[in-house]
């Protein structure tokens, strides 16, 4: 279910829920209404204010769909401003959620519109256009921004939003500016759009498509050549830079889930007096950092299997801490089970961040490991309650 804007209903609800619940814990703790909430009052005041800010920022997100069917048929100048940097940061910090979009249309980066400059095609996800323009600084190009409903190139192509029809719609809108004396329109398509673009179909409609590079940073070299040649040999590289780019958004995503879990446990503390284990969020942050960093080094091909190996490594450290009397044995047992549960969850959910995940493989892993993950979460909770009961 989607709202009228780019932000989905579930994201909106999550933001509102955390905001109101945090403020409820703050007020209930501050005015001694619920004794269990008192120690957490200052923390949740900060969380509440942070999420109030995020919710207010979400009100600035662009709306989708029909607003883009404007009648503008003239090319527009485009360049990065301070606002674009802010929007890009908000999008990145918000775990690559749909936030801002660029109105579809024909743009130029030079001082005037020059039909002789290369024509690049891209999606109307603001972060995509931002990264593209950042890579193209000082280079004069034309940019045909396709309406993908504020979704990035690869995902939009996979979902069918970045297809021949979407490209053709913008070509028809700006045809007088794109065609030169009946010549074919040469356009550079990002290689990652080809799961939605039928090149043969484009050729039949008077377009000469050129397969562009996968990464925007490779565009300056590609464009510096006298002839634009297909980058058919270009391969997606999920290197450390790419993984670090997903680290903070992933961390924010996992910590938001962790916060919801923490809030649930806090309710249990208020009702049954079971003390909330404070180590949950730091443990989650450590695991969410280790996973993308160690991703290629972790054994196995499956995401969940890699998660299990990571949990094994962290589990050994926890066992060692018991031997060296750093952690009581009673605390270690639920912590180890929780480490396996969180690692499996991080591994499975990293499939959406990775760009090297395969549909049938993830489907198989979800069927096998999601029930185990749920079971381990419950087992860690039960073992923690048992430990607290025998304290």
């Amino acid at each position: 279910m989607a709202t009228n804007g780019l932000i989905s209903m579930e994201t909106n609800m999550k933001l509102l829920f955390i905001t109101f619940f945090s403020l409820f814990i703050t007020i209930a703790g501050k005015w001694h209404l619920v004794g269990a909430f008192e120690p957490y009052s200052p923390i949740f005041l900060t969380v509440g204010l942070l999420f109030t800010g995020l919710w207010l920022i979400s009100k600035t997100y662009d709306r989708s769909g029909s607003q883009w069917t404007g009648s503008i048929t003239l090319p527009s100048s485009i360049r990065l401003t301070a606002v674009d940097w802010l929007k890009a940061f908000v999008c990145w910090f918000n775990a690559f959620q749909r936030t801002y979009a660029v109105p579809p249309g024909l743009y130029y980066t030079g001082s005037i519109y020059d039909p002789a400059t290369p024509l690049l095609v891209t999606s109307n996800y603001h972060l995509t256009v931002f990264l593209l323009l950042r890579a193209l600084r000082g280079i004069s190009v034309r940019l045909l921004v396709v309406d993908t409903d504020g979704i990035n190139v690869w995902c939009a192509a996979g979902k069918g939003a970045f297809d021949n029809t979407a490209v053709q719609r913008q070509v028809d809108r700006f045809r007088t500016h794109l065609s030169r004396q009946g010549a074919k329109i040469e356009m550079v398509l990002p290689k990652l759009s080809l799961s939605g673009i039928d090149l043969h179909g484009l050729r039949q409609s008077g377009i000469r498509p050129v397969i562009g590079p996968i990464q925007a940073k490779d565009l300056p070299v590609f464009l510096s050549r006298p002839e634009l040649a297909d980058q058919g040999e270009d391969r997606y590289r999920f290197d450390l830079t790419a993984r670090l780019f997903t680290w903070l958004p992933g961390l924010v995503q996992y910590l938001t889930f962790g916060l919801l879990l923490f809030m649930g446990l806090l309710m249990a503390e208020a009702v049954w007096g079971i003390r909330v284990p404070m180590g949950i969020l730091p443990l989650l942050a450590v695991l969410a950092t280790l996973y993308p960093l160690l991703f290629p080094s972790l054994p196995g091909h499956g995401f969940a299997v890699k998660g299990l190996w990571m949990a094994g490594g962290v589990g050994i450290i926890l066992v060692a801490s018991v031997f060296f009397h750093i952690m009581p044995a009673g605390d270690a047992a639920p912590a180890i089970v929780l480490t396996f549960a969180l690692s499996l969850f991080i591994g499975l959910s990293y499939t959406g961040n990775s760009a090297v995940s395969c549909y049938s493989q993830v489907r198989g892993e979800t069927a096998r490991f999601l029930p185990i993950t749920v079971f381990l979460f419950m087992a860690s909770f039960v073992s923690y309650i048992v430990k607290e009961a025998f304290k």
Partner: protein
Amino acid sequence: MIHIDPASCSGCGSCTQVCPHGVLSIVRRKAFIGAKDRCIECGACQLNCPTEAISVQKGTGCLFIIIKEDILKLNANDCSCG
């Protein structure tokens, strides 16, 4: 899963040009799945094969989309990712 029908393949190499992970290559004038474990089933090869020799069970390899589509039977096109 990706499958090639060698009888229909013309060996034009379109599939090798559009694959972002270098899964396919041309061997003896036929498309060949050389690195199956790298295939992400994006469907670019199938869409751009002029002789329809390639079939892929296309899908998004994302836990949350699979939960939405396969388990909750919801429309995953409304996912919140940009």
